[in-house]
């Protein structure tokens, strides 16, 4: 495993919770130790925020092993029987449906789940997980569509938050975002304080994100004008832009 990208731009955020890079491997990583406890997958990135880099194998995964392709869902789970017991779903039928769309890694395609805080990361990760305030998330999300105009499209479900944080971005190539406090087990496990944005960026979007963060203005002057100043400035700049074009100037409804 080697690292080609320069991740130093992320230091500028001064994250309270460190970004974590995750890599899925069939080969035991060199120079990284095995996790010395058993955790749910959704707890592992939290663990990595304050630990040395580690890898987890089947023995370390207390929950979420099906999402990692390490085990198949047991019938009790897959049939949806558990949902009403946990007050997650009204009945088994409602619970069962999630297994048709919750993403999971192909069976037996991963043996070692490697986690590292960004500042100790020695590899280019398969996914990079940010735990961000709304202000930090606004910058990351704006950067994510800065050059391509793509729509933000966040996916999730009542349970299996790990599927949306760890599997969906990796499999789909799409950035995903959830909010701490929404994932059922994550909430029960008190993984993070509520209201933080958990953003996962897959490997093929990371270099573009870095490039855009280097290029774009993080705090545009538009954010500093206040409500009335903003409205006034939009009209003024709009008039300037449309001058000479065959269209009416921008109108902005004000009370």
């Amino acid at each position, binding site marked *: 495993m080697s690292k080609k990208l320069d991740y130093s731009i992320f230091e500028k955020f001064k994250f309270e919770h460190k970004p974590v890079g995750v890599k899925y491997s069939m080969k035991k990583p060199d120079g990284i130790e095995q996790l010395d406890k058993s955790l749910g997958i959704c707890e592992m990135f939290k663990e990595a925020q304050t630990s040395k880099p580690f890898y987890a194998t089947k023995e370390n995964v207390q929950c979420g092993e099906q999402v990692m392709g390490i085990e198949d869902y047991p019938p009790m789970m897959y049939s949806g029987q558990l949902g009403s017991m946990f007050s997650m779903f009204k009945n088994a039928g409602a619970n069962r449906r999630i297994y048709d769309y919750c993403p999971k890694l192909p069976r037996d395609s991963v043996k070692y789940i490697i986690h590292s805080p960004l500042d100790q990361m020695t590899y280019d990760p398969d996914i990079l997980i940010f735990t961000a305030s709304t202000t930090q998330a606004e910058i990351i999300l704006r950067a994510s569509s800065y050059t391509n*105009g793509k729509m933000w499209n966040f996916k999730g479900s009542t349970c299996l938050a790990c599927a949306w944080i760890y599997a969906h971005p990796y499999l789909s190539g799409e950035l995903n975002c959830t909010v701490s406090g929404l994932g059922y087990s994550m909430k029960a496990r008190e993984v993070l304080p509520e209201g933080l944005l958990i953003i996962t960026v897959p490997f*093929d979007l990371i270099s573009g994100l870095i490039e855009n963060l280097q290029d774009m203005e993080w705090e545009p002057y538009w954010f500093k004008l206040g409500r009335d100043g903003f409205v006034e400035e939009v009209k003024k700049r709009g008039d300037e832009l449309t001058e000479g074009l065959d269209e009416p100037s921008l109108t902005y409804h004000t009370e």
Partner: protein
Amino acid sequence: MQSTPRDYSILDRFNFERKPVGVKFMIERPKDIKRIDKELNMCEMLKEAQENDAFYVGPDDWVCVGVEQMILGMRDAAPVLVSGLLGGDEDLYKGANACRAMYQYLPTLPKGSVQYVAFAPIDQISFDPDLIVMTADINQAHTLVCSINYSTGKPFVSKATPVVACAWIYIYPVVSGELNYFITGLGTGMNQLNIFPPGLFLISVPFQLIPTMMDNLKEMEYSPVMEPGPGGDAHRKRVNKVLEDMRKRIKE
């Protein structure tokens, strides 16, 4: 328009017989580019830019049946077109209903968003293009259509209709953010205009993917000649050996 364009020199290794062309959609008249001085359909403009200097096309320069202005968001197409009547009567489709259905799929730019379209051969490009169209043979295309897939794993897909090829060459990639390719000889109108010999790949890469393509092409192998493979037995033997080595490595 950006005055310091991206470095496209990595494309030189392909020694294209026909130059790649950059295209940009604008609401303002481009400066320092001359206006087109002949009547051409939009699909012919690609060839024009390959063989000449950069040019722009203004609102009054479109000469096709009106569908070009429609896909550019300049104006609605005439009822005789969108009703499917032309395509049906001309036997391009079984009936007007099939031809009308085709219009539901045609990608278009937002209405009123474009007044000018600039074309430039890549070696003269002075702007940051909205897309690059490369005209490639099968060997070049083998590398180029994989140039996004190489780092994303996403399938390469070609979307097209037998008419209005220009929508799939110029508009669809920008609207969808996806690479698209069109094979010459499949477009009815283009065939009538004798633009290209059949069997060439027109590969359109939108601005969203140009950096990815450039980065990947720097890493990807390319041979100007498509060498024959080693054959079934030798290939299977080699792959089995690679797999065996990998399994050993994973067990370590």
